[in-house]
């Protein structure tokens, strides 16, 4: 295990940012700390880096107790959401910074900088100032700068949070490929479940200063430990008192095979997908509406449109989690939020 976190707590006044967190982060993997804003994931990352001091608990990096070490001596590379570029230095100088203060020979520094700039595809920008780079390029520079000192672990705090959707996606794929090349133990913080599912080997879901679940993307998606994890990783909808993924709901146009009867109240087409909002029979308002996603072709073959009576049931083998408190406010908000964004 590369990073061992034991019993870490952090309070800001009355606010509990982290409450007694234990976590082991495996060597050489790409781990995502995933959770909603204010859930404590960035605080945990900053505590690992030594930029924040925990109230209680210990941090061990590569077998060394780092709890009391200043950030300078932890051997971690840190990448910030807003790049934290040294604005008055050229790209090459930024990358060389860590090596120069270690008093490495000039020749070695130059070679290493060249190698890293090639790795992050910025070799032709070596003499530019950070202000002359785009956001994505600046973040790649920050990554090269962090990698230059060959840290034991690389920590990224919402690294793509300030970038637009397209660049975000490109950088995400690129980070994955980079990690496959460099193999340094990497931990990145994100609130974007898609980012975590796509890039990470392992995901740690953090909410309200607690770890909800740790596992591979498949584990978390297929076997969520609780309502929160299910709701946070991917979409969910409530069908007959159970949480289920909208694409795991089967739609029948006749009641012969059972299922929950209802009526289509809205149909939205998003690309190849069709989202149906189905109001179960007897439901008064949109509070108990069920969201179903189908492919467009399938929806057309069933002849679904607004007003069509349908019967819904969970797909065979789909993950279904009973709702404890009906209906959980946070999850409801999530589904509604997603809808709102599409309308």
């Amino acid at each position, binding site marked *: 295990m590369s990073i061992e976190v034991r019993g870490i707590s952090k309070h800001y006044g009355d606010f509990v940012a982290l409450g007694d967190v234990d976590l082991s982060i495996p060597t050489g993997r790409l781990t995502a700390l995933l959770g909603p804003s204010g859930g404590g994931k960035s605080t945990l990352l900053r505590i690992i880096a030594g930029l924040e001091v925990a109230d209680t608990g210990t941090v061990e990096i590569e077998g060394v107790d780092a709890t009391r070490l*200043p950030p*300078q001596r932890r051997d971690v*590379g840190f990448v*910030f959401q807003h790049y934290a570029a*040294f604005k008055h230095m050229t790209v090459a100088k930024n990358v060389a910074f*860590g090596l120069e203060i270690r008093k490495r020979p000039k020749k070695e520094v130059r070679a290493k900088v060249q190698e890293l700039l090639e790795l992050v595809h910025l070799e032709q920008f070596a003499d530019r100032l950070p202000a002359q780079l785009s956001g994505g390029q600046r973040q790649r520079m*920050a990554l090269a700068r962090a990698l230059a000192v060959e840290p034991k672990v690389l920590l990224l705090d919402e690294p793509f949070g300030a970038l637009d959707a397209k660049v975000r996606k490109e950088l995400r794929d690129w980070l994955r490929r980079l990690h496959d090349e460099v193999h340094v133990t990497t931990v990145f913080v994100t609130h974007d479940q898609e980012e975590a599912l796509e890039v990470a080997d392992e995901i740690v879901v953090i909410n309200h200063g607690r770890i909800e679940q740790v596992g591979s993307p498949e584990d978390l998606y297929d076997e969520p430990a609780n309502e929160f994890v299910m709701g946070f990783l991917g979409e969910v909808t409530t069908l007959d008192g159970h949480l289920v993924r909208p694409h795991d709901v089967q739609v029948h146009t006749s009641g012969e095979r059972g299922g929950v009867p209802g009526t289509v109240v809205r149909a939205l087409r998003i690309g190849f997908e069709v989202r149906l909002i189905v109001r179960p029979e007897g439901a008064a308002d949109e509070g108990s509406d069920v969201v179903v996603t189908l492919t467009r072709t399938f929806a057309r073959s069933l002849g679904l449109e607004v007003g069509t009576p349908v019967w819904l049931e969970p797909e065979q083998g789909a993950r279904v989690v009973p709702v404890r408190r009906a209906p959980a406010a946070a999850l409801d908000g999530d589904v509604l939020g997603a809808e709102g964004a599409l309308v």
Partner: protein
Amino acid sequence: MSTPTLAATAPGSGPAGGPGAPQRGRRRPRGVEALTPAAGLGLGVAMLWFSLLVLLPLTAVVVTALEGGWGTFVDVVAEPDTRAALLLTITEALGVAVVNVVVGTVIAWVLVRDDFPGKRVLEVVIDVPFALPTIVAGLVLLSLYGPRSPIGVNVVGTREGIFLALLFVTLPFVVRTVQPVLIELDADVEEAAASLGASPATILRRIVLPSLAPAITAGASLAFARAISEFGSLVLIAGNVPGETEVASLRILKFIEGDRYASAAAVAFILLLVSALVIATLDVVSRRVARRG
């Protein structure tokens, strides 16, 4: 807005590779010519204001100074008292600028980075030298460091006294120029340097100071310019012994009282040159520090 222009000019502008750059080059001067009425009016008012208040009087001084030819300058500088006054003024002003750079930056740092009781009060007190008429500033210093000093320190009529008065009136410049820049400085930049292994001293030298350099030199330039021209507070403190504690501005007053306008203008002209020279030098230094990193 630009699309119709492009469509109109594109057919005539030759090979595919070329049109972009020359076209932009051609359009820029046209943009300058085509000032909107509001911009034209604004520029006109600014120029008129600037001319009436600064440019014309300045020219008048320069003309008066040069009217007498080279001879006036030689005569004025040849007077030992004038030479002493100029030398005193310039060295004191330089000294004041240097002290301000250090102390002003430290005060700005404390005000931005540290939390302590009375911080708000200090924030306000910093501006007192700005708010006080300079003659009152002189009076304030006189009451504590004058002949009737309650602590037994009398600096009236000494060079230290002049230095003290200049420090007093120039105190806010560097503080007030550095403070906003320091507030804007992102904490994560320093954190990034720390996690790369930089010690606090290295972070200060290679990350923080280069970012502050333009603000520090701007403050130092202001402090220097103010010190070189200070009058009000020195009237009471300096003692005005010719050749000893007489500064340039008081020398100028003495020339004017003696109806020697050309000499007064010559001294003023020399002060102007020195000021311009020092400010230009500081600018060069600041650019170099900011780039070095």
